[in-house]
């Protein structure tokens, strides 16, 4: 496998940047590079990950200020040119603020910050981020967020569903999409979506925190594996 370079963006307040770096580095032939928010150089990255955390202290709205940081201008162009960008948790919030993904994330339905293991299932395995999953799988991946309640106007939701842009949904342990299994009130139990072009994915659950047996789950690994295989195979 040729070397795959993955740029992990570091904003002031990012706190999953090193977890992501660690998870990415555990794949053979994959090299993470850290990209500071004030830089303009993507350092030859083949893919970009926007990690979880509280960029700029979540001031104003989660992700709103990060969206205008210097590095993000490069990331936005990178994404518009068709290269892969993955946003995890706060990274998902940033992607929504950029408009690369549609919708918004508001406060969790039950007011609480949720830090817990959740079940999600892949509902579209024809993406570069989910090709290594199967539709009948139920994954155990943690969430840790206060604002993960996915919202979009009705027309947007319909369009997302129509174009198979929902990639992950919250489910119960048996894989049923139920209201009870929805941790934060997200419309249609949406946990992760992809853009129409298929190169930008955002999700609230943390695959990097489910990438080693010691962490209790390795269900996040196929997401990274899908992406890295795709890049290496280009």
């Amino acid at each position, binding site marked *: 496998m040729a070397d795959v370079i993955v740029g992990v963006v570091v904003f002031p307040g990012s706190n999953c940047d090193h977890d992501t770096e660690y998870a990415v580095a555990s794949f053979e032939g994959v090299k993470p590079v850290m990209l500071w928010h004030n830089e303009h150089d993507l350092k030859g990255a083949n893919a970009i990950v926007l990690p979880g955390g509280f960029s700029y202290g979540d001031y104003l*709205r989660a992700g*709103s200020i990060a969206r205008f940081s210097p590095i993000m201008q490069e990331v936005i162009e990178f994404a518009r040119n068709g290269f892969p960008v993955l946003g995890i948790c706060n990274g998902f919030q940033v992607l929504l603020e950029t408009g690369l993904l549609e919708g918004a994330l*508001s*406060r*969790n*339905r039950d007011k609480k910050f949720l830090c817990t293991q959740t079940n999600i299932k892949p509902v579209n395995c024809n993406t570069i981020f989910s090709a290594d999953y199967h539709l009948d799988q139920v994954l155990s991946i943690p969430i840790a967020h206060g604002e993960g309640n996915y*919202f979009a*106007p009705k027309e947007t939701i319909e369009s997302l569903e129509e174009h198979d842009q929902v990639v992950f949904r919250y489910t119960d342990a048996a894989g049923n999409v139920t209201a009870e299994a929805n941790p934060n009130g997200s419309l249609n139990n949406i946990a992760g979506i992809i853009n129409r072009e298929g190169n930008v994915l955002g999700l609230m659950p943390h695959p990097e925190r489910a990438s080693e047996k010691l962490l209790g789950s390795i269900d996040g690994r196929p997401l990274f594996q899908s992406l890295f295989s795709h890049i290496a195979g280009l």
Partner: protein
Amino acid sequence: MPYTAKIKVTLRQSILDVQGKAVEHALKNLGYGTVESARIGKYIEVTINEQDKLSAERIANEISQKLLSNPVMENYSFELEQVN
């Protein structure tokens, strides 16, 4: 000439305001039975140094749309005052 834009950002009615709901319940618990609802928003004061009110208004609109509010779930409004 400096102007102060007093900008209010509020959640759209269709969005569940969990903070507002918590405050509403607290007020009811305090015995304010006539309280029907509470909604929480943001108040932002921005001083803008522009030639005239129209230009300041244009800036206030622009920054509200671009950064201060998220049109997917929020509305904004503002008042503009000249600073003496």
